[in-house]
């Protein structure tokens, strides 16, 4: 009951919250929550810049993110953030600046959606993929990133 109340009032105090299109079954969070996780767990951040109703986002969700291996790799290896590039939902950047998800999409050049960006815990882009992705694209990107991280740790 307490949880239900919290969820209900959570809706009321989020006046700019908008529906988004993150793939189902993944632990996607808001950008600032994922950034905090990224810093606490020293993980890279994987940011999915989508848009409400975006066709190529839905295609990637249904044809690539649905894959169990993709889901395992991305859920384990990264702090996952979903950003609706048209949303007025606010977030706080590491600099302390409060901006909207739409502004964040502009700053990270989410010109067309979807855009998938790997960020280090400082928010710097280390790798980026634009447009529809296949299962093999996502797995290859993860392999490259993990291989680079392993080399860096040696």
């Amino acid at each position: 009951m307490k949880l239900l109340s919290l969820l209900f009032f959570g809706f009321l105090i989020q006046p700019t919250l908008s529906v988004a299109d993150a793939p189902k079954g993944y632990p996607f969070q808001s950008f600032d929550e994922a950034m905090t996780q990224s810093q606490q767990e020293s993980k890279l951040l994987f940011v999915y810049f989508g848009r409400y109703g975006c066709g190529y986002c839905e295609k990637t969700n249904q044809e690539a993110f649905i894959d169990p291996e993709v889901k395992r790799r991305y859920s384990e290896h990264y702090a996952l953030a979903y950003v609706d590039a048209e949303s007025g939902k606010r977030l706080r950047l590491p600099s302390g600046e409060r901006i909207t998800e739409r502004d964040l999409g502009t700053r990270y050049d989410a010109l067309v959606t979807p855009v998938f960006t790997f960020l280090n815990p400082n928010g710097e882009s280390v790798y980026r993929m634009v447009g529809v992705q296949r299962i093999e694209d996502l797995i290859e990107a993860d392999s490259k990133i993990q291989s680079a991280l392993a080399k860096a740790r040696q």
Partner: protein
Amino acid sequence: MIRKRLAVLLLLAPFSAAFAELWEFESAVDVTAASNGGKANFFHHLDSAGRRNIATNSDGVAITWEDDRDGTPRIYLAYKGLDESAFSREVRLSGEGEAYEPTIIALDRSRYAVAWEENGHVMTRSVSIDGKVELGQVVQLSETAGAQANLTQGNRVAYALWSERASRYGRIRYRPMTVDESGTFQLGEGCYIDPIPPADEQLYPTAAVSGDELIVVWEDRRPKHTIIMAATGQSGKPCQFSEPLRISEKPDGRDLPYGTGHGVSRVALGTFGKEKVFAAWADKRNFRDGYDIWGAEYTPDETGFRTNEKVQDDFSGLSKQRNATVDGHANGLLVVAWSDEREGHTDVMLSWREQGEWSDDWTVSVASGAGHQNNPTIALDDDGNLHVAWVERKAIGGTTRLKYAFGKLQGD
């Protein structure tokens, strides 16, 4: 006088060299000199539903914005007389809560109304600037959680609009109001623009008065992607609006197996000519180009909003355009400005419409060049001069400055 001058300009337009510059801009000035003692960066934001953050009257120009100079986002207003070279008066408008996205209108020669979001509610107050600055009482407009405030006025009535969240989805609500001599708001009956409970988000409203009509436009997600919708009401008939209609068109041949439709973002409105209204927004119908600036004209004696037209020219390639802001003059002059990255940095660009044609896109020289000149807001004064404010930063994520420039109408 001004009407004659503008008429001459309009007649000369076909013979001019590809739409010569219509305004000559003075050097940009800082709107605020506020600092936080060098403790840390702080950030100015010049955003609001309808991008109405600047207002002029016969005496001066006022700009409202949000910054976090003391660690909390708050709303401020700065004012300068038209004959002053710098902003001389600045005042904080919001209270102790986090505040965002202020919007402003000029009520008369010396008074303004400002509305903003604070602690999840929509607030408003009047500001009188007649020698000294006097603030009216803060009034809460939203009954439940609300955001994305917009103000407009006409026929001596001001109208506040916002997205109110009484249930799961934001829903556009409006309230007429008048201000007495003491600066006190008299609130009229408020209601939702669409009486049918929303099936999805209704966001970022803005409005304009055309004759006896109040035209309201907003972002709407009912088709499971974002579109621009409009409804009209008539003065003297509060809370009676037409059935909302979609005004951002669906491009032909785009029935893809995935997704629900293309995106649009942040509509702005301006009035011009004889009771005409123009809506401009960022539109992703040419999806490979990202967002471009599109719009539609509303003519009261016709069937509402006309066919969509592309405001910007076709020389922008894959660069980003966004943050459309609109204003017009009773003489028929209409101008749209926006943020544009075609030159490799963020500039303020604009286009004006003459004899039904949009000019070439024109860079505001004092709001362009290295770095980022972003989030413009514009206002035309009674003489057709263009007032522009924007946020300047050297690098993405870096600290900001709030800038203003005066554009003198050419042709004297």
